[in-house]
């Protein structure tokens, strides 16, 4: 709750900063302060919740459901955003004129993320998702001179609007099929046995719409193009924080609304999961541009996160938290490095290990984490996901399939590592003037975080279990 309010308010603040503050660098610091404030507020709320006394208690008419799980998730998201600001803040300034507005939009997105993490009615789910999406359409197109950026934002917008329509249709059918005639997700009367046809139809619509938001195959087609076309900073943002938020909404809806009849729709999830893993991993193998490769890899990772929707048990929730943290940190880190690159192709990374050992080392850690090598957070998150899927009995083969694709994923991540360490450096990999020491330090901290979570995941998961 605190997070929602504060992020919205701070968004407005940033908006005006854009108007009143001429300096291009100030908004960044303002934003950093803001995100820290939001984080603290959220932490307080989490703590208060865990000891059972909420300070400011707004009556939301049960439209929001605050619990330690989604508060922890918000905390993770905010932390990642902070990291994102610290690592890539200066690159946001480079995108265009309206620095303040960019930050404002990002804050609005955060607000939407918090909403879709805590919503308790379909209405707020819808609003949350929209509040997440609309600023992103803008951010995608924010590099106005660049045709790729324009194209990306147009594609993103059209398909996004389309998926909105689909989601609304789903909501309508769910509402219609729900004898209680209510939009509260925990007040949907499904009854015993097979669910009513209308609910089923609505459910499928919802699966489609949410799969679109989390870029799960076969509704992923916007992802590579949009991620590729958008300014790299914003790609980094939307491929991490927004995506995991989408997953969180996904899991939340299906756990609370349709958890009881899981058996009746699980096949769809299995289908989508396998498709996503297949397309994401296999297509990434061939990519030459690291940016695009990361776009596909984000699809592949989404395939793994789908396992949480598949399993829907406590392990899955923990896994989702871990995944949110591990995947976001690693990806933000990689993108932060990628932005500095002069050449986005894999050859562009040649010999980075020689010229910038520290950066190369951190990048390696991130990539290893994305691959899921032990002692990195990536392993723990994948591991939890697999455990969750395995605990959900009956479809163990899915676990094996997932693992096989994980092996493929090693292929494209390691191509970058090979380029960095085993190839001779080309001309001027990075121009050193925009590599600041703080940047290096932040990168190192991110890498250390990855390792820390990898060694001791309870560091993240533990928050769920304080109450």
């Amino acid at each position, binding site marked *: 709750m605190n997070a929602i309010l504060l992020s919205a308010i701070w968004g407005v603040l940033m908006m005006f900063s854009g108007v009143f503050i001429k300096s291009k660098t100030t908004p960044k610091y303002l934003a950093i302060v803001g995100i820290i404030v939001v984080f603290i507020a959220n932490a307080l709320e989490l703590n208060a919740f865990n000891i059972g006394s909420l300070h400011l208690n707004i009556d939301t008419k049960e439209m929001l459901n605050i619990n330690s799980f989604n508060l922890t998730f918000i905390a993770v998201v905010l932390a990642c955003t902070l990291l994102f600001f610290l690592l890539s803040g200066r690159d946001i300034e480079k995108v265009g004129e309206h620095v303040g507005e960019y930050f404002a939009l990002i804050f609005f997105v955060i607000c939407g993320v918090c909403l879709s993490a805590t919503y308790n009615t379909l209405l707020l789910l819808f609003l949350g998702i929209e509040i997440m999406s609309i600023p992103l359409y803008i951010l995608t197109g924010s590099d106005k001179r660049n045709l790729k950026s324009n194209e990306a934002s*147009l594609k993103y917008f059209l398909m996004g609007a389309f998926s909105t329509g689909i989601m609304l*249709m789903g909501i309508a059918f769910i509402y219609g099929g729900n004898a209680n*005639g209510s939009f509260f997700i925990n007040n949907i009367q499904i009854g015993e046995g097979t669910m009513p046809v209308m609910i089923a139809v609505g459910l499928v619509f919802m699966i489609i719409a949410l799969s679109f938001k989390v870029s799960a195959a076969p509704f992923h087609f916007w992802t590579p193009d949009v991620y590729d076309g958008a300014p790299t900073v914003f790609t980094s943002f939307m491929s991490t924080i927004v995506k995991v938020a989408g997953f969180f909404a996904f899991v939340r809806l299906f756990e609370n609304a349709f958890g009881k009849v899981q058996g009746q729709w699980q096949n769809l999830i299995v289908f989508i999961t396998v498709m996503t893993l297949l397309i994401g991993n296999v297509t990434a193998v061939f990519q030459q541009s690291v940016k695009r490769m990361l776009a596909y890899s984000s699809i592949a990772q989404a395939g793994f996160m789908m396992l949480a929707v598949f399993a829907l048990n406590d392990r899955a929730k923990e896994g989702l938290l871990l995944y949110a943290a591990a995947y976001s940190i690693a990806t933000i880190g990689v993108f932060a490095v990628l932005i500095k690159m002069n050449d986005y192709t894999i050859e562009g990374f040649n010999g980075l290990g020689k010229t910038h050992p520290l950066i190369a080392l951190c990048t390696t850690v991130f990539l290893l984490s994305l691959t899921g090598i032990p002692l990195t957070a990536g392993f723990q998150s994948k591991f939890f996901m697999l455990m969750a899927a395995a605990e959900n009995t009956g479809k163990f083969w899915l676990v094996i399939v997932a693992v096989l694709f994980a092996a493929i994923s090693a292929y494209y991540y390691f191509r970058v590592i090979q380029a960095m360490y085993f190839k001779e450096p080309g001309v001027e990999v990075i121009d050193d003037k925009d590599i600041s020491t703080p940047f290096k330090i932040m990168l190192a901290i991110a890498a250390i975080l990855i390792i820390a979570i990898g060694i001791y995941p309870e560091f993240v998961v533990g928050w769920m279990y304080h109450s």
Partner: protein
Amino acid sequence: MDIKAYIALSLTLFTIGIVGVLTRRNAIIVFMCVEVMLNAVNLLLVAFSNMHAASTAAKALPTFASDAQIFVFFIMIVAAAEVSVGLSIIVMLYRNTHSIDVNFLNRLKN
């Protein structure tokens, strides 16, 4: 008047929207087709609300059916917002390429 009639109607409109999206290349038209889809949904929601209002459980509280109508109201809000954004994007595109053909730009592929 049975609900099925309304379902049929709105699904038809919905499909018309989809087909429009699929067949047209003019970004604005495509976007308008999306609007058609949204309106189909709105219609359906209102119909459902009255269906629920007709059901016995509803008799209890008078404002029962208004949930859905509020929802429709919000949908319209969102639609409006989307339109503003969408149109601005399209205009920007037009400014850069002098075309609003959705297939005109495909630098991003594979």
